[in-house]
């Protein structure tokens, strides 16, 4: 027994010691001397059809490159990218959330692409993608696509209540319309208590912010008068439906709630409408979009610009090929196709007309003009890891004193951002 064990152990060890090369992961070169380029994209960030089309097109232009796209899961992605950046054999291009670039850039694991900005015509990039992609004046993340929240509404319920969605251009009218929609078994709006991106938009509308920097340190600013007004508005809106006060839009997925209950509106990216229809095909064609209303006519509501940047790990062995890939995918031709295929906002303002025909994307583009990002500090990642804003929202919605809770939440934000830097 013992001998077999020892043999087994040493075999295992031997396997470990042997060279770390194995077919696919060895980045050196594929068949016929082609460079194998490993690319990580997130689940659902591109459709399978688009991915195939792009790979084919790109490899036709660059026959020397063999692109291998791997789809990554959202769960544990932060740790996964960390592990990749610290490894000796990282993927060559990684898609990463725009707000996450700063922490990876700060760590020194990303290739500085500042000298490529003019080649990529960076001047017309969406600010909400380009700014978080930069860290201390250097550009690490290249804007890939953006998406922001709009109001997804049920045309049939609006018609029944005699409301024209195109009239809803101010917060005041929005509340009035929602109140009229909210009766009987019908919910005016399904707004879960912890949809903090939506709250952030209201805060920016009021001229406030989630956090501010002074003297080199970041501190939470949820207790400023503007931010408090935003929370009050959120509370008013949230009450016009049966959204749970203690969970966010993913739990349960709000699109599924809209699919099964009489919900007149949700606040979601336009892609959420597809999920609604998937779950309830009877709603096909009955969903419309309008931008989140602002405080006054002519100013749409501020929104959080979500989306992704592409980054190149420093340890990638094919910086040139990786850059060629990034340039192609973020170039105008493919951006137009991507935006249409996925209902995204393209990565530069000049491309906005590309999606004019798509109701969801065009509603989104209105908001995108007033897009904001979360505070650009590596410490923000620590905030999102255990978000005190969510606790704060639930506390206020369940009747606690807003000023007290805001002060507490701001202190928690300050602490989290400090510990993360």
């Amino acid at each position, binding site marked *: 027994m013992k001998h077999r064990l020892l043999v087994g152990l040493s075999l295992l060890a031997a396997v470990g010691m042997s060279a770390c090369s194995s077919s696919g992961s060895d980045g050196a070169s594929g068949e016929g001397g082609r460079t194998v380029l490993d690319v990580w994209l997130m689940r659902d960030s591109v459709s399978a059809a688009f991915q195939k089309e792009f790979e084919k097109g790109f490899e036709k232009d660059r026959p020397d490159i063999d692109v291998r796209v791997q789809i990554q899961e959202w769960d544990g992605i932060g740790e996964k990218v*960390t592990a990749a950046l610290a490894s000796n054999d990282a993927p060559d291009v990684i898609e990463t959330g725009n707000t996450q670039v700063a922490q*990876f850039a700060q760590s020194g694991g990303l290739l500085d692409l500042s000298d490529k900005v003019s080649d990529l015509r960076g001047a017309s990039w969406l600010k909400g993608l380009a700014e978080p992609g930069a860290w201390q004046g250097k550009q690490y993340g290249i804007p890939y696509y953006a998406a922001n929240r709009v109001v997804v509404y049920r045309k049939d319920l609006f018609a029944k209540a005699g409301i024209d969605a195109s009239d809803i251009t101010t917060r005041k009218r929005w509340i009035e319309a929602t109140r009229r929609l909210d009766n009987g078994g019908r919910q005016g709006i399904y707004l879960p208590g912890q949809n903090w991106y939506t709250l952030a938009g209201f805060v920016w509308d009021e001229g406030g912010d989630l956090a501010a920097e002074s003297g080199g340190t970041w501190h939470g600013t949820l207790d400023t008068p503007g931010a408090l007004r935003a929370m009050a508005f959120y509370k008013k809106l949230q009450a016009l439906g049966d959204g749970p*006060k*203690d969970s966010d839009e993913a739990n349960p997925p709000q699109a599924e709630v809209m699919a099964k209950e009489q919900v007149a509106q949700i606040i979601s990216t336009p892609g959420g409408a597809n999920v609604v229809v998937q779950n309830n095909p009877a709603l096909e064609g009955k969903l419309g979009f309008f931008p989140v209303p602002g405080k006054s006519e002519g100013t749409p509501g501020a929104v959080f610009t979500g989306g992704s940047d592409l980054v190149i790990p420093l340890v990638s062995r094919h910086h040139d090929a990786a850059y060629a890939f990034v340039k192609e995918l973020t170039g105008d031709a493919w951006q137009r196709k991507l935006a249409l295929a996925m209902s995204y906002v393209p990565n530069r303002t000049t491309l906005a007309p590309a999606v004019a025909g798509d109701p969801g994307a065009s509603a989104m583009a209105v908001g995108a003009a007033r897009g904001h990002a979360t505070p650009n500090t590596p410490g923000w990642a620590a905030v999102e890891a255990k978000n005190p804003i969510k*606790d704060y929202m639930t506390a206020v919605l*369940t009747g606690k004193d807003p000023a007290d809770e805001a002060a507490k939440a701001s202190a928690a934000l300050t602490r989290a951002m400090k510990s*993360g830097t």
Partner: protein
Amino acid sequence: MSVVRERPARRPLVPSPRRPPGPARRPTMSGVWPYLLIAPAVLGMLYLLVYPLARAVLISLQDFGLRQLILGDAHFVGFANYRTLLGDPRFWTVVRRTFLFMAVNVVLIMTLSTLVALMIERLGRRWRTAVLSALVLTWAMPVVAATTVFQWLFHSRFGIVNHTLTGLGFTSFEDYPWLAHGSAAFAILVALVVWQSVPFAAITLYSALTTVPSELYEAARLDGASAFRVLRSVTLPLVRPLFMLVLSLEVIWTFRAFVQIWVMTRGGPGDATTILPVYAVQTALAQQRYDLGSAASMLTVLLMSGVLVLYFRQMFRQEAEL
């Protein structure tokens, strides 16, 4: 089973006389053989546990974040990380909460599982199989699925608990957000951990009960002992070593409960359900302060050993008698 019969648990503290040498128990094959036999285990533990542990200790003495993981330029900072932790009032609240969490869980687990074990022993065959199967099913349910289900049960709007309570006329529970209240969230997590832990403990304790020879019960009954007295003077002493082992394992396991809390509340609301492992992961993986996370884990191990040190001493002494 014979073990229990031969060697009642409560051994005298005076070293017992060695068993006379004979076929029954002969110390055999000494020399190099035992060392060869434990070599794989020892080597495995050295390389796969002690070595990483040593590296973790080193990390806890360095300035080690994401940057150092990627670029590898960590430098030694002595006990600065430990000083940061020990000087953080939040850390101490977390430590107190961890002990509370552990104590409440362990007391509940041990009480309930002892009761369940005693119950199973008294059941007829069919009922016994039913209860044991139910326990086993519970035990095998994936942690993430179990946690999610508990989360649903207590969901403010879609949970069946609020639905039922409201239906029964407790209207104050309509949309009651359990997980938004620190103590309620804490209680739900305790319920979850107890629910998941009782099967192992109960099954183990029950199997220990089955090893108690029935002659002992009969003898006690002949002496006119009451049921309670039989339990106290016959049953409990015999299952004590096992009880202690389960107890110490549960101390370790509840001290290290992590997945349930992380999935359900991430340590919130506020810090209400943050115990040490959650704190360590929050600092290590989420904030990428691997140094602080490591230091927190080392302190956790120390605290845990503190709780179990008595048990270790007893175990060490018992081993000497074999």
